[in-house]
């Protein structure tokens, strides 16, 4: 029969305590998020409207909307992703599936890990030197996107490798045993079972790219540009553009007499864009997880 000894009681008390501590910490995480979002929405709400999103700033950025900045951010993030995602994913496949454990590949690994830890302002200076000046691209959407791509690349590589490594080695060996090449194995077994993790890693980098100000400040973002409202292709790769993060910085610190809700409204739009992308990532992950096969 079960006897409640002092040891058993102690064990249960500790279990309860541990659960409470962990739960409390997890709950505490939600508080700042709710506070940030509600404060921003409360402060910025009066300005937010469809018109705010789709018109250019006017009157020294004190009036009007944020269209040119919003579109600029979309362009920068989109182009940088188009560059970084394929390179990052393919490089990660090489590192995880083909590379042998030798000094050369260890150096590459080390480089990737260290690059992921480089501050964004350093990437900005690199982008200015390499793309804007040395390569002669000039300050433009392209140069800024390349800089953002360099910044997100190492993290994409790391997260993709993580996703690939989560596919059990026994699956690969089973394929090799029947004479499949590495590529046949990757294509039919490894990629289909890691694609959800890969996409999640890539999409999470979107929010990072969208939020950064430093890397684009020297390489392609400007204070103000007037573009055709409502035209999604109002920017071209060789031109400079506005960006939400930069715009937020500008109206907060450089523009005197801007209406008080304006920075908050910009912040809400930036946050909403990022959350929208993250939500897509979550939906995609849930969908692909449901198809995961072991």
């Amino acid at each position, binding site marked *: 029969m079960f006897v409640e000894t002092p040891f058993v009681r102690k064990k249960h008390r500790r279990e309860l305590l541990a659960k409470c501590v962990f739960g409390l910490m997890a709950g505490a995480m939600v508080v700042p998020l709710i506070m940030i979002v509600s404060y921003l929405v409360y402060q910025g709400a009066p300005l937010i409207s469809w018109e705010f999103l789709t018109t250019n700033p006017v009157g020294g950025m004190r009036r009007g909307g944020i269209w040119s900045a919003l579109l600029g951010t979309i362009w920068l993030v989109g182009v940088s992703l188009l560059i970084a995602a394929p390179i990052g994913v393919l490089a990660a496949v090489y590192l995880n599936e083909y590379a*042998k*454990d030798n000094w050369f590949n260890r150096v590459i690994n080390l480089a990737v890990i260290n690059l992921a830890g480089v501050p964004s302002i350093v990437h900005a200076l690199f982008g200015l030197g390499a793309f804007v000046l040395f390569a002669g691209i000039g300050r433009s959407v392209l140069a800024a996107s390349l800089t953002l791509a360099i910044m997100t690349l190492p993290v994409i590589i790391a997260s993709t490798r993580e996703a690939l490594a989560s596919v059990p080695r026994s*699956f690969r*060996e*089973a394929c*090799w045993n*029947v004479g499949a090449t590495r590529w046949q194995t990757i294509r039919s*077994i490894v990629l289909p079972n890691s694609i959800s993790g890969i996409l999640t890693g890539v999409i999470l980098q979107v929010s990072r790219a969208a939020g950064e100000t430093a890397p684009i400040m020297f390489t392609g973002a400007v204070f103000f540009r007037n573009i055709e409202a409502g035209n999604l292709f109002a920017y071209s790769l060789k031109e400079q553009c506005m960006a939400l993060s930069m715009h937020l910085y500008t109206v907060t610190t450089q523009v005197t007499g801007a209406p008080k809700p304006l920075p908050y409204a910009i912040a809400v739009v930036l946050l909403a864009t990022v959350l929208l992308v993250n939500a897509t990532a979550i939906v995609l992950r849930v969908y692909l997880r449901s198809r995961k096969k072991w």
Partner: protein
Amino acid sequence: MQHPVKKIEVSNLRLSYGAKEVIHGITFDIYENEIFGVIGPAQSAKTSLLRCINRTIEFSPDAKLKGTVKVDGSDVKTQNVYELRRKIGMVAPLPVGLPITIYDNVAFAPRCSGVTAKSDLDGLVEQCLRQAALWDEVKDRLDSLGTKLSGGQQQRLTIARALSHRPEILCLDEFSIAIDPITTMRIEDVLKELRKEMTIILVTNLTQQARRLANRTMFLWNGEIVEVDSNDVMFSDNPRNRKTYEYVNGIFG
């Protein structure tokens, strides 16, 4: 019996992982169309030996191999590795159902070597699943996932997959570990049939299984051959080595 054809020739094979040598120079032949039993306790390098034959040993970066392994008279090192592995069906001791449908599990290897016609694949899949004694259990759900099968069914799926590329050599490494005795018997009957078309290497911890099925059996002990002989000798009261008698009859120690 006339002169048997040598299918696999292993001569003076030494294998080490890093500084630790696990196979200490062994030499033996396996003949065409025989069932060759390999028995021996854990750590006697039975699995490593199989991996030397189909060159999957190369996936262990610290493995070093000396001596030669010949299949069909030519050194495996000089053969095309994919062709070689297609020639050899390998069943690992832990069942692996690939995370694709049961049908695709079996059709995987043929597709990799360029067989794409649905009619060819259908026949092949059915034949292999029948040979692995799995067909009756899965014929109505070929499109469900290989990973959703039970352990024993996955083991038979692994056997079906090993047969799917029509190998000339079939390596079974503890194939019956997760399979009930009756199903094991059914597969053993299939193996006796398959011997007509292929050479079978049967690594097993069940000495009785080797006794039932094999023509000849090799007793490995710590990476060395204690004895290779026809079963008549191996499992008689007077094998050439006393150790063999003791191991087979469970009076070791």
